[in-house]
Structures are given as structure tokens and as C-alpha cells.
């Protein structure tokens, strides 16, 4: 079926509604391109969100890494010094 020449109507056979749920007409090519672009954008967004999730997971490992003693002691000493002053 050549693009832009014929009209294809899709019906939802599960529904009682006789109205077509999609019509592909003379704008078939541009609609497909739009759909492809939307899909591509959605995939990129999903990948981007997955990357951020991976970043958070890696960052969580850093957050949960053991704190070096000297840093903990530094803070404790500063707070203790203030308490004594």
C-alpha cells in the first residue's frame, strides 16, 4: 500500500465502539516519523534515567564506604574542644 495514497483504518475488535481507533491517511509518513522520533526520545530518556540510577547506586557505595578514623576524630576533637571552652 503506497504511502500517502491509501487510507487504512484500524478497529479495536474487543470494543463495542465501531469508531476506528487509528487512521493512517495522507500524513502516514510524517506520523511514522513523529512516532519514531517519539520512541527514540523515550528510549533516550529511559537510558538517561537508567544512567542516573546507576550513578546513584555507585554514589551510594561511596556514601556507605567506611569513614577514615582521622576524619571522624577530627570532627570529634573539634566538637569536644568547643564543649570544653
Amino acid at each position: 500500500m503506497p504511502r500517502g495514497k491509501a487510507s487504512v483504518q484500524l478497529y479495536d475488535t474487543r470494543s463495542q465502539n465501531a469508531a476506528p481507533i487509528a487512521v493512517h491517511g495522507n500524513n502516514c509518513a510524517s506520523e511514522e516519523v513523529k512516532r519514531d522520533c517519539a520512541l527514540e526520545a523515550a528510549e533516550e530518556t529511559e537510558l538517561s534515567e537508567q544512567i542516573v540510577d546507576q550513578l546513584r547506586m555507585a554514589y551510594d557505595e561511596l556514601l556507605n564506604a567506611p569513614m577514615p578514623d582521622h576524619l571522624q576524630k577530627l570532627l570529634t576533637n573539634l566538637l569536644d574542644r568547643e564543649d570544653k571552652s
Partner: protein
Amino acid sequence: MSSESVRQGLISFLPNLRAFAIALCGDADRADDLVQDTMLKAWNSLDTFQEGTNLRAWLFTILRNTYFSECRRRRREVPDDGGEYVAQLCVPPAQHGCVDAQDVLRALGQLTDDQREALILVGAEGFAYEEAANICGCAVGTIKSRVNRARTRLSDLLGSDAQDFGPEPATEAVLLRASGSKLA
């Protein structure tokens, strides 16, 4: 004299400062020095901190300013020589298979400094764009641009491996067999 909330804040934000420092400079020892300098500077400048304002953002601002001052002083970029960036990180060895923490942190090291800090502040630490912009001393639009570019770059670097999310094939096969036996 610091208030109880400030004292508790300094204690509770220490791991975040360290994580940020490690992700920023890629060197655990250097990060520890950075955090130490930050804590001392913050402590000596507590009279300039306004109670009720964002203590976490204030601490992060001190740390990132200290980092960039040090960078200018050292006059060199973050190294990434054959995994050395990752080798010095305090991240336990990951299991084989999927994108792991070391892959992500290695990729982070390949971003520019400003992109890396923007992505960490917004993407990992959860700062709002406005907060991150205040920390970095730039416009909100600039932060958004840096985050987008960083995210895109990270996606490119991890893109081929990013599809392998979830359990590795061997584990997944076990899970499939287990679910199949329940349905039988």
C-alpha cells in the same frame, strides 16, 4: 558557639562530603585531605553561617571551592591513567557482568570538572538546580546545561554496557528456571 543543629549537621553530612570529594577528584586520599580542609574551614567560619539556611549546601560550597582552588594550584586535570582513577577509590570490588560502580566512577572521571560536579550535585546528591547553581556560583541555566551534557556524555561512555541492567545471564537463567518450576 555552634547550635545543636549545626553540630548534628556537621556529623551527619560528613559521609556526603567525602562521597562528593571522592567522586569529584577520583582519589580517596586526596578526597580525605579535601574533606579535612573543608571541615576546618567550615569550623573556623561558623560565625559566617546563618542559622536556618542550607548547611549542607554551605558545606558543599566550601568543599568545591577548596577543590577548584587546589586544582588551580596544582595546574593539572583529574588523571585517568589505565584505571588509576578507579584503583584509588574506596569502592569494594564489584561482581562481574553488569555496569558496576567502578565503571560509573571511571566514566565520571572522563567528564569535565564542571559537568562532573553538576551531575553529582543534582543527579547523585539530589540538590535542586537552584541550589546547585548557588554552590557552583553560576546561573541555573548553566547548571541545567552542564547536567544534560554530563548525562549525555555518561550515557555515551556507558551506553554499550547500560543495556545490561539487572542480574547477569547466569543468575537470570537460575531465576527463570525457578519461576518456571513454580508455574509447572
